[in-house]
């Protein structure tokens, strides 16, 4: 079986590699001037007063893809909650308070608020500057985990009531969907960015529904990452397998 596997891997891998190399030779040259989609996307983004074209693509032009991606994260979190639940042959142990080196503790506590604010800033300015809900959400969620490094697991658990984060994850998904459905109720297409004024270009309140969808994503991603990490950390720190089973 081992030899068969190696043969398959060799032949299949070589064939696929040859195909990919041949395909890459047919790719358009690097750095050309023809960007049909890019040109259209920039135009559409400027027409709706969204300074960050990427956000316009994410939350306006292709907001429906973002809905799918957000749902993937939501489903992944829900899947982890289900799969990483406490099994019958496991029990919970309180983690021991751990000794943390002083410089690490000081540094972590110093950086925590900075990281948190940075995350929120990146979310809030998604429609203007690079970044947005996805990136800022991850930064904000990981900032909380500096407490685990700087203090211990118990401290992290105190600032992280899981139920609240699970609920806010789901509420954010609801918010995104409700914003999309609102335009259907208004008689236009799903997720149409026509409900709100587009505002002044390059200000916080520009871009119509883009900042709102962006904020919903930020909230979803931040809560989802907290819940995901919590369940994996629980597996590593708290949940123990029963002895002798």
């Amino acid at each position: 079986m081992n030899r068969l596997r190696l043969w398959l891997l060799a032949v299949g891998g070589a064939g696929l590699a040859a195909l990919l190399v041949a395909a890459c030779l047919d790719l358009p040259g690097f750095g050309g001037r023809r960007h049909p989609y890019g040109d259209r996307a920039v135009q559409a983004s400027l027409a709706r007063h969204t300074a960050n074209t990427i956000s316009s693509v994410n939350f306006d032009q292709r907001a429906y893809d973002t809905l799918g991606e957000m749902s993937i994260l939501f489903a992944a979190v829900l899947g982890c909650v289900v799969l990483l639940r406490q099994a019958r042959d496991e029990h919970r142990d309180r983690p021991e308070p751990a000794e943390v080196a002083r410089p690490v503790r000081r540094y972590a506590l110093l950086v925590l608020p900075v990281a948190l604010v940075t995350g929120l800033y990146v979310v809030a300015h998604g429609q203007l500057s690079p970044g947005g809900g996805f990136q800022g959400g991850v930064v904000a969620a990981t900032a909380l985990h500096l407490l685990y490094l700087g203090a211990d697991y118990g401290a992290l658990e105190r600032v992280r009531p899981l139920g609240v984060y699970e609920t806010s994850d789901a509420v954010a998904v609801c918010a995104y969907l409700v914003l999309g459905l609102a335009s259907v109720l208004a008689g236009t297409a799903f997720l149409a960015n026509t409900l709100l004024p587009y505002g002044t270009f390059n200000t916080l309140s520009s871009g119509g529904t883009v900042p709102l969808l962006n904020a919903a994503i930020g909230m979803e991603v931040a809560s989802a990452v907290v819940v995901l990490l919590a369940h994996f950390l629980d597996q590593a720190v708290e949940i123990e397998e029963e002895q002798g089973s």
Partner: protein
Amino acid sequence: MHHLIPLLVAVPLLGAALLVATGRVLPRIAAEITGFVVSGGTAALAVVLLLNSEPPMVEWIGGWLPVGGESVGILVVGDGPALGMATAVSLLTLAALAYAWRYFDEPLGGHSGAFTALMLVFQGAMCGFAIAGDLFNAFVFFELMSVVAYALTGYRIDEAKAVQGALTFGVVNSLGAYAMLMGIALLYARTGELAMTKIGRGLDATGHGGPDALVLASFVLVLTGLLVKAAAVPFHFWLPDAHAVAPTPVCMLLSGVMVELGAYGVWRVYGTVFAGPGGIPAADLTRALVTLGTLTAAIGAVMCWYQRHIKRLLAYSTVAHTGLFLVGLGILTPEGDDGVALYILGHAGVKAALFACAGVLLDRFGSVDEHALHGQARRLRATGVMFAVGALGLAGLPPFGTALGKSVTEEAVGGPLTLVFVAASAITAGAVLRVTARVFLGLGPRPEDAEYETSGSDEEPETSGLLSRIPDTMTTVPAVLLAAAFAAGVAPGFGAVVARSVNEAGSGGAHVFVHWTLTGVLLGVASSVLAVALAGLAVTRPGWTAAPGWAAPLRRLQSGHVGDYVAWLLMGATVLGALALPGVLGS
């Protein structure tokens, strides 16, 4: 009306999000009722849209209507096949939720709605994939339905087998998804477009001398992703491992519609992206799909016959039938497409009903082992009758919907391929009938155990403890599903309606009349008789069912080792490339 198409995705997702948001305070019964309402509401919406899908609808999400033929938005299609699949998905989800009424034992501390929510996301994802008219968007929903399916497969975490099956499923399907994404990237590099129709036109505009290596590679990569989902040989190894361990209501969806969505995706993507002069020539697609489809049908049927684990047996019969679907789609005729559409609808009802019956055995006896259960289920008369009726539906006994679809497809493929259809359906149905005879009737001697088999004994029931009495929902749901599969063949004009909507969407409006023919009926009867004869022989001469020497290596290929499956996936992509190569070289 067309503004409502994306609601097929939004409504189930909203339902799932609400269930999770309120999961900590909601009693279980409220969560399950919410699930019914949301999934039933979506099903009703799908039916209404389907009734209005002539002429086919298109919806630009966000109102990004094309200006000068160009749009930056995403389109979803509301034609017969798309909405038909969405309807099938929604109705089957509703059936699975009804079957799972108060099903699992522990309501997962504080997450009473988690299972229902996952099922709703699954429904929304499959609907989203069905209506996708944008290739990247199709990939997004492909991923979403995969992610939910992994979680649902591994739901019973206390069983190592379930976790292992879900892991295999996850690794193989994720690799398929990456292949698909890479293919989409290549197509985007060439055409600068993501909408399927626009990519197709872009390929035709740029590929003056016919397809080149880039087109071939993108075709191979995109099809690899879809064929992994469709469980075509040699991408199929994940399916029996996952379907044997997934909770029964999930199996109903996995085998009933998710796998078929892979075949649907092949039809949609080839027809809109690669069918033009700049794409892959028809002869190459036919060679690739008919070869892989025939192999899939043959291997699926053989492996199905030599299983004693009833859920694995049913899983392999799904593999065999997707092989038949791929053959029918591969010949690229309007009749073939119509036949497969009907076949898929009938098969969804029959296969889901069979899984539902297998679930009854599992929860009543804690075993799905054909040998251990020999004669045990004599008193489950209703389930036994449904199992037998389902087997005959699988064989394509007229007037089941499966029989109508099979006979139309058989006439479309013609020649020796007809034999593949008759043989594969007869062998898989024969295996199910054999199980019926042994388990529900106790016929024949108890077969001897062979070495190294996945037996299906010592399984954990999915309900809280073994059931002493089968709840009505677990009998009603398969009965309704079988009735639906029966009605699909009998309802006057149903076949014609399906055929018209499929042809309007994909065959350039060619009008084909789909109806019962004498040959088709005779072939259907022949498969059923053959199935009964095979089952009879197997029960009276058990030595006959013992796997012969040549089948042993075939069975050893299903090693359960993820590495093997990945190697086969690479091999499959290479084979697919080789099968489609002549058209590229010749242009």
